[in-house]
């Protein structure tokens, strides 16, 4: 996994609440056995008409958000199904950061395994960012080391993240590799509990 330290990118607003993982990546695309290539199906039914034509009004299809790497959405982002295809699709499409006032637990966890930063800001901060991104070409800089988000207009805020999650992203760690260093502890537990 690529380490994540500092990122500056264009913001795409998607100001809806309770965006579930069925919308992020619909079920017909979950049959593939590969991990890559889900980006083209991201928000499929919100992005495309039944005949495959792009829906002009959907933010991801607008020229001004082309190349956006930061998505700003409403609360409870990623609710519903546990499908990790959702962060895979977001990441594959080019997103590095998802901003929302709250995230669903499973989605939130899944992001860190894929170099994607789910960034929790307050409702007011999210609204400020969405409004900016809706009216102009708007970029944010996310500094994971310092745990700050800022723009060129004077907006700057700190965000919370668990030290473990931060460390994983900063180092681009293979979590399984880390865990397997504790092999003796796992064996010890199994012996003690007769498992």
């Amino acid at each position, binding site marked *: 996994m690529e380490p994540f330290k500092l990122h500056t990118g264009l913001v795409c607003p998607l100001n809806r609440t309770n965006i579930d993982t069925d919308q992020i990546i619909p079920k017909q695309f*979950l049959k*593939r*056995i*590969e991990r890559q290539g889900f980006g083209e199906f991201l928000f499929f039914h919100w992005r495309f008409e039944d005949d495959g034509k792009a829906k002009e009004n959907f933010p991801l299809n607008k020229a001004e958000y082309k190349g956006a790497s930061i998505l700003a959405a409403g609360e409870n982002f990623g609710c519903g199904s546990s*499908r*990790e295809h959702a962060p895979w699709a977001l990441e594959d499409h080019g997103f590095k950061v998802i901003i929302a006032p709250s995230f669903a637990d499973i989605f939130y966890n899944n992001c860190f395994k894929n170099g994607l930063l789910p960034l929790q800001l307050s409702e007011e901060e999210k609204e400020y960012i969405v409004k900016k991104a809706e009216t102009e070409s708007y970029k944010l800089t996310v500094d994971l080391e310092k745990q700050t988000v800022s723009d060129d207009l004077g907006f700057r805020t700190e965000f919370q993240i668990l030290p473990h999650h931060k460390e994983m992203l900063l180092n681009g760690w293979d979590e*399984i590799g880390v865990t*397997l260093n504790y092999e003796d502890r*796992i064996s010890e537990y199994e012996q003690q509990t007769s498992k």
Partner: protein
Amino acid sequence: MMKPKTIVEKIWEQHLVLQEENKPDLIYIDLHLVHEVTSPQAFEGLRIKKRKVRRPERTFATMDHNVPTINRHIINDKIALKQMQTLEENCREFNIPLADIDHPDQGIVHVIGPELGLTQPGRTIVCGDSHTSTHGAFGALAFGIGTSEVEHVLASQTLWQSRPKTLNLKVNGTLGTGVTAKDLILAIIAKYGVRFGTGYVIEYTGETIRSLSMEERMTVCNMSIEAGARAGLISPDETTYNYLKGRRHAPEGEDFTKAVEQWNSLVTDEGAAYDKTLEINASEVEPQVTWGTNPGMCLPVSASVPDPEHEGNPAKKEEILNDLDYMGLKPGQPISSIKIDHVFIGSCTNSRLSDLKKAAAVIRGRKVHPSVKAIVVPGSFKVKQDAEKEGIDLIFKQAGFEWREAGCSMCLAMNDDIVPPGERCASTSNRNFEGRQGNGARTHLVSPEMAAASAVEGHFVDVREYSEFTALT
């Protein structure tokens, strides 16, 4: 005296492999359930890094999401077929027990775990599926995980997890006739919203919960994730032990007695503290019907769909307008006037024998409305077989329902069981998200009894008005 503890704290402490400051805990996973959709990339990850499955015997796989429920062996979808074959190959390579499409143990992963006695009190259970919360009905700590975590558990039999907060959801009062466990959990989510459980494990407590059967408890715990909670559970009791006794993987004889003693020690202590407590009075719950595109958008069958004009908050007003538009409903329209095109009885929420019996009791001697296409998809091969032994299949077939093979089916429409665009389905499943049952499909979540009654009438109807229905025994 020891500090009183909740069942969640007790299970957590018994599974701690490692606890260090500024880190989540490393917890041991007792049982890992696997299905075809969320596992292929995990096995591939193991292969790339030349890693093994640490405890194949603590792993159990089945096929449920993609499997056809009709013409079982004609799988036209080549990509789906490849996914099933991949699971077979992976299970063979890594020595994992698999209940494939022809196996008598096959079924929805959350139906067969309990059925086989794999699901037991005090166990930590994970699966790459958000409805793993179902297994909490037995007093297990069970939650859904992503594919990277599936790989992590395969390789290490552990997971890094922050200790969850605990939420006591007290349910007291008596559920009325015709009001089910499904209505209860829908009413809870309607009352407190789709986010109240985020960051918590819900423990369902109170006299109403104690009076529920195991299958009803599974329905309640199943939908914990629809409230945002990764896990929901119920302290075990005699009902739990009676269900487990004699199941294939449950302890036997003296071991069972010892196990019961240990399981009893898990029950939440008197006076244990929770991070949050919520309550609901079961006596006030009516049969529920969802009207929107998340499970919190739910009302009693006697109500009318919301009128956005009555909503003061502009953002909420727009949300209601969007939902009514997607759902093809008029503001203020009575729920009972909503006509339906499909009925789906099935899914990990409501596809067990008692669910099918309750639905059958409603439709016995009646006919499916001519404008409705109705299917029953038993949760497992065993449920199907048991139902057939009792002639439940005949009741459905005579009424005009299709009687299918086991699988997830129309709950998420990954196989051919799809609701066409713009059509409306009364469904006993768990999610009414946009496009869940097919692109453009409109889903209304209901209980099996409500689904059966609406199949007969062609629109929603209060099942309590079906005076003649008597439960099958």
